[in-house]
């Protein structure tokens, strides 16, 4: 009896489904899959005699070796009157010669070997990386070590990069999106160095002595972590690293602390002749390791992550008001991240889109999300976990950053546990606690002559002139 009943249900289902597909095809919404467990890769952890922590994962599948060393030498630590220095520092560290090698020699050798040594920087870290075919490992490691420990910051290369930075400043108002992102980051981090924006004067003031001092101050092996993966034998690699990094002396590094951002709410408006308005809005919330962060991350996905997020459905799918729209909770390491939404929308609907976006934030405060909506984004996070282990170098670098930030080794596991436990009530609670539309920083870049309503009808407008 029971079997027959199941047969009828199945038949009904396939009839309901049987539109242009074979009757035996499953309903894709009912397909059930196990959550796959990633094969967790753990690097070997070694400390060199000078205190440098090294994380190594062997991978013999291709004849490459990749490494990246992280240092706490990011943009927030540059001198307050020399904003933009860390970017110049990173370029000239790589391009200004090192050890006994001239700038041209380094370029020529690396490019002939089809290898790379690169220096990157962000708010928190500067990292120095290399990538090479195994055959050239020794030669490339020596250059990498020179760049890392003995950069020359040649004067003519410093002048070159300053000139290029000034040209980039000249061009930074060319694109409305670029203006909006810059002004939003500046306003939402007001009072904290993460909100600083470079100027022609701050770039012009940078000297070779500044770069050498910055290097001297922050580049110490005992506060750095190196992630290295690829085609090598771990023991031999450690011996090699001892050899090339042996002359890098330990030292004390003290990092300054800063007060958290204290933005001033309001509508920051930039006049630009364009047929779309770029809109960013949000407020600072919590750091990435504070209680509530995981729930904010989850609810921010409901708000703005992908095709099924509320901003996408309401602004783009249902109304066709934007190609690009979305939002997120940014990861705040060291100071609070921010919860935000953004749209690039037709100019004559600017006020309508702002109101529509604000309504999405308010709704998430006023009503709990549906269980179904919560599960969709929770499932995405949990099922996508296998993608955290698709590249050994990415795994090693992630662990290196976790250590540099002083986060617990199981930081991610804690996050997953909180994601698994989160309820609609939790999401509503963090929205009410941390997201305050009436205190938002709202940045609008657009042409006011074409707006549907003056922005002043939405709140206090602060006009930001373009420099």
């Amino acid at each position, binding site marked *: 009896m029971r079997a027959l009943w199941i047969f009828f249900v199945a038949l009904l289902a396939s009839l309901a489904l049987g*539109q*242009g*597909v*074979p009757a035996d*095809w*499953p309903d*894709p*919404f009912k*397909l059930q*899959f*196990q959550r796959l467990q990633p*094969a967790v890769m753990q690097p070997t952890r070694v400390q060199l005699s000078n205190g440098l922590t090294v994380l190594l994962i062997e991978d013999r599948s*291709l*004849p*490459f070796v990749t490494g990246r060393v992280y240092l706490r030498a990011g943009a927030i630590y540059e001198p307050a009157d020399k904003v933009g220095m860390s970017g110049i520092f990173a370029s000239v560290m790589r391009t200004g010669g090192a050890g006994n090698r001239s700038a041209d020699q380094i*370029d020529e050798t690396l*490019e*002939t*070997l*089809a*290898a790379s040594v690169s220096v990157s920087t962000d708010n928190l870290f500067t990292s120095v990386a290399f990538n090479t*075919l195994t*055959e*050239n490992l020794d*030669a490339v490691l020596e250059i990498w070590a020179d760049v890392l420990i003995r950069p020359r910051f040649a004067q003519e290369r410093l002048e070159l990069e300053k*000139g*290029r930075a000034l040209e*980039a400043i*000249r*061009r930074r108002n*060319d*694109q*409305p999106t670029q203006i909006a992102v810059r002004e939003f980051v500046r306003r939402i981090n007001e009072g904290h160095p993460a909100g600083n924006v470079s100027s022609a004067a701050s770039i012009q003031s940078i000297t070779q002595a500044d770069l050498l001092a910055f290097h001297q101050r922050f580049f110490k092996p005992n506060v750095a972590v190196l992630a290295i993966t690829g085609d090598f034998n771990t023991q031999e690699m450690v011996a090699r690293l001892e050899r090339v990094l042996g002359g890098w002396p330990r030292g004390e590094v003290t990092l300054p602390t800063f007060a958290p951002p204290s933005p001033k709410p309001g509508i920051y408006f930039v006049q*630009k*002749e364009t047929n*779309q308005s770029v809109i960013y809005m949000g407020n600072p919330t919590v750091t990435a390791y504070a209680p509530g962060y995981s729930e904010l991350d989850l609810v921010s996905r409901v708000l703005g992550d*992908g*095709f*099924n997020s509320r901003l*996408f*459905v309401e602004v*783009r*799918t*249902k109304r*066709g*008001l*934007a*190609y690009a729209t979305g939002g997120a909770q940014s990861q705040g390491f060291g100071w609070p991240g921010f919860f935000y939404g953004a749209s*690039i929308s*037709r100019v004559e609907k600017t006020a309508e889109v702002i109101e529509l976006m604000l309504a999405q934030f308010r709704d998430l405060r006023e009503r709990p999300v549906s269980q179904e909506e919560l599960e*969709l984004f929770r*499932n995405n996070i949990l*099922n*996508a*976990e*296998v*993608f955290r*282990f*698709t*590249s050994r170098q990415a795994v090693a670098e992630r662990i290196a950053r976790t250590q540099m930030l002083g986060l617990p080794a199981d930081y991610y596991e804690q996050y997953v546990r909180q994601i698994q436990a989160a309820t609609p009530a939790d999401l509503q609670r963090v929205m009410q606690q941390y997201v305050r539309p009436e205190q938002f920083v709202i940045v609008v870049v657009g042409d006011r002559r074409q707006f549907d309503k003056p922005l002043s009808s939405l709140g206090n407008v602060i006009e930001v002139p373009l420099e």
Partner: protein
Amino acid sequence: MRLKVLWLVLLLLLPGALAQQLREQIRKYTLDNGLRVLMVPDKTAPVIHFNLMFDVGGVDEAPGLGGIAHMVEHMAFKGTPSIGSLDWAREKAALEAIDKARADLDRALASRASQEEVQRLTAAFNQAREEAKKLALPNAIDQLFTNNGEQGLNASTGYDRTDYRVSLPSNRLELYLRVYADVMMNAVFRSFYEEADVVLEERRQRSENDPNGALSEVFLRTAFQVHPYGRPLIGSREEIQGYRVDKAMEFWKTHYHPNRAVLVMVGDVEPERDIQLVRRYMGVIPRGPARPSLNIPAEPPQTDERRVTLEYNAQPSLLIGFHKPTYPNREAYVMDMIDSILTEGRTSRLFRRLVIQEQAALNVSASSASPGFRYPNMFTISAQPRAPRTTADLERLIYEELERLKNEPVTPQELQKVRNQTRAAYLRVLQGGPGLAQTLAFYELFFGGYQRIFEEEAIYNAITAEEIQQAARKYFTPQNRTVATLVTRGGSR
């Protein structure tokens, strides 16, 4: 110097074995309906990177329907009767009501009906759209994949091809196949007019409010006066506003067939097992007609330099292009080598001269196969001057370097450096992931089979300094040149 030569010899030996290893891993199947399936096992993680590529793109569009391939790419995400409908019988009727309301409105507009009549029909059209929306689950395909942990769900349209990409945990293979086989057979273009508005916003964002997009559009229009490479890939505003469901559906039904597609799966696959599941779903899709002969007109040889300026609210910029042949013509590979010699890395000729020595440019870059590759295309050089230097200064310096290529053979060291760079870039692609999936799809569709990827290294290695000199002389001529300059509105060049 001796040591250097030794390294180079080693470099030459290595990749062969590697390529051989990869080559042996790739499995290719052809289904009865013509769909080609390539699988590359890689057990690093339990994930599969999918790339479904069609040999359809902007060049296949009829005049007046510019951008319809891109529009159709968007619409293929809208689901099917069984994916995204709350009640298909009623939704189908509601979608037909929209088409009728739109046709009524179009007729009224064409016959210059009274304003009242147009307003009434516009309201009816909007009402029909609202009714249909109530019967649809928006973004259902994305919802299925999101639930299952997707990464990188996206698609792109070029002049010559369209591809759909997603990465999923490897045990979701059946879900992927169930969804895309259904889409290929039964795509429903729901929310069509809302999506046309989205595309219009995309056009504003990428081609109108972005100085590079705007410059590129005028450049192509000037360089290709006959061939469809000269039309904007996203369509003009008027074309986008003129899109209708029936025309889009006709384009979809004409072109998007299994026999014009390749499905590549890179990752945790077991070919002999997984092909069974692929056959079960993808094998059901009926074969379609072959690629219609579209009589795409050839671009006649250019006989005089063409120049165009775009006044724009941005800092100056320069885009120079030369017509050239495409693959598999050997000269296309020669032009790839020239691209590397001129702009790959800090020691490349143009970067060193313009950016480092003369400090005349913020940046310089080149492309040796723009904007497509099925038909003869262009070698382009783009550069941004550093004030007070001008685009005219950059032009002069660039032409000097091109003359040097014509007059002196490149040195053996320089040639070897470029070969090494080409090889390393190629090895990095072979490392797997979405990039490898896309590259294999590309070669399978356009180069007569994925195996071609393993033959190119030999072509590059055999190219001589003399060939480079000859190609430079043949193509870098003033009469074969198109120059587009972005001029600051109200400012100087």
